[in-house]
């Protein structure tokens, strides 16, 4: 995460995502989470960097992790535009790490306070992390079980054809069969990798596949730290003493473990909370199936469901405002206020379309148009299909929480 924070500074994302925008799309119930004024967001990410470093070296680990989880989640609650599955994963893992005994060995904390150091952790703490990662893989695979992915090889057909310039394998990617091969292999990988990681006999080979798979995705797709995050996290499936055995093999010396078991404050309560967490994590991605039969189109229940790299979607939106009292009508192009990223994300997500419509209505009311109506003309293209009108153009969105999505022609 230290690298992730450095990337925020290096690529100018703090300004682009938190300072430059004039409007933000907050999550329901979190409208009070706003960017800090002035250079506040730079300070915020600077502190996150320091905290990430503290976590790396195990200094004040629990406090550092708690503050990091809070600060990182805060930053990403500011604007729905910036939602990414792997940032959500970071928030979730950071929250778990507050409870788990993270700084018990090989850390500054263990060095400073040997009495609190430990050589072993309760098995359930490892299984919590394995379960969390397993959910990411499995639901990532479930998201691929649809006709677009399996029958039409979309959106990989689009994405791979665009990467003909990748050294060595670029020419292969331009063939249709490559899209099918990657689609089916990707779905099989996501759905099957966890059992193979759990089975001791296949674990090493499975991890090699994990590394190759994520390295390929890092080369082919702009998905930031996600591949590296997963490569770094997946060894949690190995026997917990694998670092000692690896060090012994590398140095030729024994790295024996002790017998001190890490203590967890209020362990029973912690177990209960984390068990509940895993139940919630299992249920949240399933909500989409109860809400809609066309998740990719409506994006209902799309967030927090590990639907990683599942669709290629693009949208355009304009808003028509009408003051019934005066009959005055006017059109607003959201790009006149929103950033390019915000405008493109908003145009494909019904809740964000409604958010912006309400914002326009509020603006109009402040300018004296008391009962202004707001309607949206939105067109969306999904997985290489010709664009279609996305939301009901006659629906008044001035007070809506979600724009009504029109059914897609299948």
């Amino acid at each position, binding site marked *: 995460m230290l690298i992730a924070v450095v990337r925020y500074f290096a690529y100018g994302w703090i300004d682009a995502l938190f300072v430059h925008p004039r409007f933000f799309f907050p999550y329901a119930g979190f409208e009070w989470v706003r960017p800090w004024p002035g250079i506040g967001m730079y300070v915020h990410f600077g502190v996150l960097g320091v905290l990430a470093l503290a976590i790396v070296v195990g200094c004040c680990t629990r406090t550092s992790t708690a503050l990091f989880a809070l600060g990182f989640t805060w930053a990403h609650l500011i604007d729905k535009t910036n939602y990414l599955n792997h940032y959500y994963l970071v928030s979730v893992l950071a929250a778990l790490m507050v409870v788990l005994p993270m700084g018990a060995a090989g850390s500054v904390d263990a060095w400073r306070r040997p009495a609190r150091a430990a050589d072993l952790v309760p098995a359930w703490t490892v299984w919590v992390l394995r379960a969390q990662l397993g959910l990411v893989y499995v639901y990532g695979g479930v998201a691929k079980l649809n006709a677009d992915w399996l029958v039409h090889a979309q959106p990989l057909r*689009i994405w791979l*054809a*665009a990467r003909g310039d990748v050294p*060595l394998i670029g020419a292969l990617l331009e063939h249709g069969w490559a899209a099918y091969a990657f689609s089916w292999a990707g779905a099989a990988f996501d759905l099957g990798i966890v059992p193979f990681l759990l089975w001791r006999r296949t674990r090493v*080979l499975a991890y090699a596949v994990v590394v190759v798979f994520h390295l390929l995705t890092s080369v082919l797709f702009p998905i930031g730290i996600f591949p590296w995050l997963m490569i770094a996290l997946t060894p949690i499936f190995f026997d917990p003493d694998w670092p000692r055995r690896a060090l012994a093999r590398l140095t030729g010396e024994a790295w024996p473990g002790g017998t001190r078991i890490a203590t967890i404050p209020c362990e029973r309560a912690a177990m209960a909370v984390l068990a509940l967490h895993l139940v919630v994590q299992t249920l949240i991605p399933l909500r989409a199936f109860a809400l809609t039969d066309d998740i990719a189109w409506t994006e209902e229940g799309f967030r927090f469901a590990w639907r990683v790299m599942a669709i290629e979607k693009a*949208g355009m939106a304009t808003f028509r405002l009408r003051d019934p009292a005066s009959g005055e009508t006017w059109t607003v192009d959201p790009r006149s206020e929103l950033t*390019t990223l915000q405008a493109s994300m908003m145009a494909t997500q019904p809740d964000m379309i409604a958010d912006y419509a309400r914002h326009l209505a509020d603006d109009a009311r402040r300018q004296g148009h008391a009962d202004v109506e707001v309607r949206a003309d939105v*067109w969306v293209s999904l997985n290489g299909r*010709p664009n279609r009108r996305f939301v009901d153009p006659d629906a008044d969105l001035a007070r809506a929480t979600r724009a009504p999505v029109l059914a897609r022609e299948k």
Partner: protein
Amino acid sequence: MTMTTKLFLVAAALALLTTAVPAAAQVCGDADDSGAITVTDGVLVLRTAAGLGGECDATRCDVDGSGSITVTDGVNVLRAAAGLGNPTGCSGGSLGPRRTFLRDLSNAGAIPSYRALAAEAVDLQVALEDLVTAPGAERLAIAQQAWRTTRRVWKETEAFRLGPSEVQRTSARIDWPNANPDQIDAEIAGSSAQSSAYLDTLGAQKVGFQAIEYFIFDPAGDAAVVTGLLGTENARRRAYLLAVGVNISERTQELREAWEPSGGNFGADFIDSGIGGNAFPTLKEAFDEVVNRMIFTMEIVEERRLGEPLGVKGGGPRPDLIESPRSGDTLAGILANIEGVADVYRGTYTGGQGTGIGVQVAAISPAVDTAVRGLFDAAIAAVQAVPEPFADAIVNHRDEALVAYEAVQELRRALTLDVASTLGVKLTFGGTDGD
């Protein structure tokens, strides 16, 4: 077998996979893969086209990139064998489809188009020299026609306005949306030397096509134009007009030179993006830039050249926002813009048929390709149906003008949403960027 051995075998298999390379280099038109284009190749293509048993790979024999091997391909190969051309349209082969597109856009599109533009600009310069030497109705008509022709060629090139025209800031100096007559008149009233070099120091509103339009088209009629160029009192007007003509000619020559193999050779740099060329770091960035430029051109047409004068966002017609109102050539410019973008999509370049964007789209989504080709036809027809001058049309032929606006809007939407996403193109332009 130990786990280490297993891992080694897996790694070796992966290494083999990732080092697999495409087939050896192919020459477009070299049907028998002999390494050169000969009459035998032409005959082989013709036999294949006629279904007479010739075996010919489309990556070598579909030389116009139409998607099938036809008699036209055979004729083109025979012409090439006779030294009368160089087939460029094969959609496969060693370059891959996207680099093939860059090659055709450069060699069959941009370079021939900039050559044509530079030649037309010379004609315009000559026509303006004739006009200022002896102002008269006949010479004025010739200059006006030269202006229209040159500007239309320029408008067509806006579809691939990238590289030198942007780096050298040439585009703004050739074609700023509107001239500023007051500032031009102030220059004429001043005492500065009126040369092309001096004009290079002035703002874009005082040079380029729009400045020339200010001189050679007048709402009061052609007689007023001629009168305005006669006599010693108008000597500085004549000198200024001449200098603008020279300036446009020089700028377009620079642009041509920048693309030419014998000059800056941007064309080769562009084609070789990501493999040694300096134009773009990667092939993807070069390809994405072209698609973005096409979309941006259509967006300018939709919003600025059609939408704003029509007042589609409220407020009613705005004749003052029309581009090139004095010449009544507004819609011709718009049409040239759309046709320029259509040429890049269809591969119908100035230098002949080649690989267009559409071939890439059709390979992934034939439905999108078919729809987009239809939308180009519809938009062109809709604009053609609006009578000039546009200033009159936005009031008295508003329905036709609105139909044209909506047709262009639908086309732009398809390019932005369907084409860009089908090709995995990253959209980089801002909605309100100026041209």
